């Protein structure tokens, strides 16, 4: 009975993999020469030294399907019964490789000498893993909670409402909710709401200062997309549709993704393709909005941080979305002693927690191992504090630095900007 079930789920998985094979995938697999340079770009390999974490090898299930079914020689081999088949046991073995040891940071995609975008293929291979029932428990739980409650952590509006009241009390400002016709719909991430409530207060102050018309939506406040992390288009599309519906209801022109990496790539780059149509609004990461306010002279700041600060570029924001200069412009506004990590921007190293790794309890030891690359980078420039703009990165940096007894606080860039706003005249 269970063997029959496995056969059905395996076929579903293979079908999902077939659906993901496109011209880039075929060109990438046609070009791999097994040079192994992708391993040297991967924090999971670099910090464990285990060759099984070589990025291209993580794609073996997708490669086997491509070779057997989409190439002439592979079809001949299949007809003769000589082709290696993807089995349920193989997918089980590959599950930790595709989820626990890959944060989809795309550093390997930047380094591969033949130009393979490995991260693009990891994302696709995860579709087959979910369809065949081989996704980690932690991510299944997060995706189920996101669908059921709107938040991967099961957070509800009433929790956010308590925070809104708190922010309003301490700032003396109003947090706009369900304001039809506002310019910007602001999304948050649950992790931010729980771990970094200062973010909401910061944007409330900044937008008041700059005269930005914005709103939260009681229908949808969550920006993260557990469907993207686990690799399920159906779940991901449902979560994107909720944002689109909330934006349409409030007739906003723009949607702002918070200090979260994957939430931004999910809504900005994958979202329209998941729902099969363009948005009637534009999408920005909060850092893009802040830099735009800075460039147009709407951010008036005073004083600068004097300690030695460095910056962690979230992979999703920098390497995967081209936001590299914006955060440095903003740092220039408020920091006088800023030093970049040696490899930064599109070549920065992942914190180790992205791509669903942080929602996957089983991956804890690997997550900490991968962080050692970031730790080494931080030690090289010895900052007094680190600045970043992604709640997952920030949590990972805080936990990792603490684990290694490094006394380096981590701050969010948005709140640092808010701390330096010129006070408005009471008039």
């Amino acid at each position, binding site marked *: 009975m269970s063997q029959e079930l496995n056969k059905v789920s395996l076929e579903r998985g293979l079908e999902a993999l077939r659906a993901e094979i496109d011209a880039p995938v075929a060109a990438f697999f046609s070009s791999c020469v*097994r040079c192994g340079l992708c391993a040297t770009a991967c924090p999971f390999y670099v910090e464990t030294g285990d060759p099984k974490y070589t990025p291209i090898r993580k794609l073996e299930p997708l490669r086997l399907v491509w070779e057997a079914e989409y190439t002439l020689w592979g079809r001949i081999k299949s007809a003769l019964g000589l082709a290696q088949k993807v089995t349920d046991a193989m997918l089980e073995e590959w599950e930790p490789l595709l989820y626990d040891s890959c944060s989809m940071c795309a550093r390997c995609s930047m380094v591969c000498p033949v*130009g393979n975008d490995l991260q693009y293929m990891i994302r696709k291979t995860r579709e087959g893993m979910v369809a065949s029932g081989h996704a980690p428990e932690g991510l299944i739980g997060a995706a189920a909670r996101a669908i059921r409650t709107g938040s991967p952590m099961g957070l509800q509006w009433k929790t956010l409402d308590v925070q809104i009241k708190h922010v309003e009390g301490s700032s003396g400002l109003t947090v706009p909710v369900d304001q039809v016709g506002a310019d910007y719909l602001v999304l948050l991430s649950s992790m931010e709401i729980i771990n970094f409530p200062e973010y909401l207060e910061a944007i409330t102050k900044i937008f008041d200062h700059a005269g930005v018309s914005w709103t939260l939506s009681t229908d949808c406040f969550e920006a993260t997309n557990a469907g993207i992390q686990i690799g399920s288009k159906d779940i991901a599309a449902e979560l994107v549709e909720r944002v689109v519906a909330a934006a349409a209801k409030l007739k906003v022109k723009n949607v702002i993704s918070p200090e979260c990496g994957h939430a931004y790539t999910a809504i*900005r780059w994958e979202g329209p393709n998941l729902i099969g149509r363009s948005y009637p609004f534009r999408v920005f990461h909060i850092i893009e909005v802040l830099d735009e306010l800075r460039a147009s002279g709407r951010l008036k700041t005073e004083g600068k941080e004097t300690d030695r600060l460095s910056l962690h570029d979230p992979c999703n924001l920098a390497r995967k979305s081209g936001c590299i200069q914006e955060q440095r412009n903003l740092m220039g506004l408020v920091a006088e002693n800023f030093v970049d990590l040696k490899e930064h921007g599109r070549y920065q190293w992942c914190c180790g927690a992205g791509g669903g790794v942080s929602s996957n309890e089983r991956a804890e030891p690997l997550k900490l191992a991968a962080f050692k690359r970031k730790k080494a980078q931080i030690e090289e420039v010895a900052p007094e504090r680190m600045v970043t703009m992604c709640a997952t990165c920030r949590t990972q940096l805080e936990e990792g630095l603490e684990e290694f007894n490094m006394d380096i606080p981590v701050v969010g860039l948005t709140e640092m900007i808010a701390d330096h706003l010129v006070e408005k005249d009471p008039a």
Partner: protein
Amino acid sequence: MSDPMGFLLWVKGPAFDWALAIFALGMFARLVEIFMLGRQVNYAEPKGSEWGPGFKTVFTRTFADPGTFARSPFDVVLGWIWHIGFLVALLLFIPHIELFKSVLGLSWPGLPNPVVDAITAITVLGLLLALWHRLSSPVKRFISTPQDYLVWAVTFLPVLTGYLAYHRLINPYPLALGLHILTVEVFLVVFPFTKLTHVFTAFIARWYNGAIFGRKGIES
């Protein structure tokens, strides 16, 4: 065909035609297989363009980024040396140019024989080092398949037999030349069905990489 001259005539004649036909048709089939798959419409608002960044990456991926170079200098330098050596021996050896002229009708200036000879010797050594590295580097050995060793052999043999023929180290000469041409034919036949396709498809892969990132406003 039992005599060396007969063997040479066979490899230069029907065998060469067959090998060339399998190479051309096989490679054409692979390119069709790739492009027929196409790409889905992308509805996300672009931040940059695809074409320019795509072509830029086709060129820039030839060079390793400083971090990768520092971490794997041996890989990068060795790869460069034997790829360039292989191309010089293939394209700038005067008798090869004569062959291209007879097949394609195109010709170009070559390098003096002693220069090509020295470069070929370096290429032979480079390929031997590449094999040693594949066997000794934990990552390379782990991810290598039988195909990787087959492709190494079919790439190495034309260089080696060419070198031996040039120095008259195999006799009689028609046998030496015949063996050299035969190894090239094996290379051509194996080409479309193995990773040797990267000779063409790496440029397509790089273009897609540059285009995918370029659309999001990143230079890749």
